[in-house]
């Protein structure tokens, strides 16, 4: 399937993946993340239950300290 990840097109070799699987596939190993799927905030507790499908738009923000 094809999705948009952080404004870039990405091909994933599966029909669907959970948010947790996507994070693993794309090596997002950081703890402090904010994730949106099609504009909707996905809280940490829902990472394994929310699925991502063909055409979905995913934003992953890695929050780093400093300011």
């Amino acid at each position, binding site marked *: 399937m094809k999705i948009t990840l*952080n404004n870039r097109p990405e091909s994933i070799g599966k029909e669907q993946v959970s948010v947790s699987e996507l994070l693993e596939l794309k090596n997002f190993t950081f703890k*402090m993340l*904010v994730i949106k799927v099609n504009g909707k*905030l996905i809280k940490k507790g829902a990472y394994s239950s929310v699925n991502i499908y063909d055409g979905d738009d995913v*934003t992953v923000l890695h*929050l*780093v*300290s400093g*300011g």
Partner: protein
Amino acid sequence: MNFEEIKNKLRNYTVGIAGAGGLGSNCAVAIARVGVGKIIISDFDIVYESNLNRQYFFKDQIGLRKVDALKANIERINPEIEVLDHFIKLDENNIIDIYKDCDLVVEAFDLAEMKKMLIETFLSELPKMPIVLGLGMAGFGKSNTIKFRKAENLYICGDEISEIADNNPPLAPRVGMVANMQANTVLEILLNS
């Protein structure tokens, strides 16, 4: 647009700034210079000597509340700007009330967990509010890694990587670059609206 037109337009807007440290103080000063009508700023901290390597405060302001010192500095630069200040630690229970009437909010915290709190609270409770984030600016050099991207109503300024540490401190140049990039984004959103 000439500067008069820009000033006349900006006068009608209210910008919220969450945090008055390196990002917040520099961003507030930049938008005050250009003439954003009203700025709502919150911070719970006082000015320390260690802040002076990047924050828009002066040596004789050490010990003052950051919100009071910043309000005084903005007053000296542009007394036409209305500054509403809150000496408060922002959290998920008060942040919406304080900023709900703003046209947009600048995230200017130092800690990642506070940045996360702000984003998640707004996305849950006021999902349409434009949020201008400062993300990744520790250290020095690497000017071309500092970038801008937009994800719906989140506007992200910074390199998204450089995290502060004892051997990678936040310093005036890169913090100022990101703070001014946030201010520039504020102008872009307001002047194009």
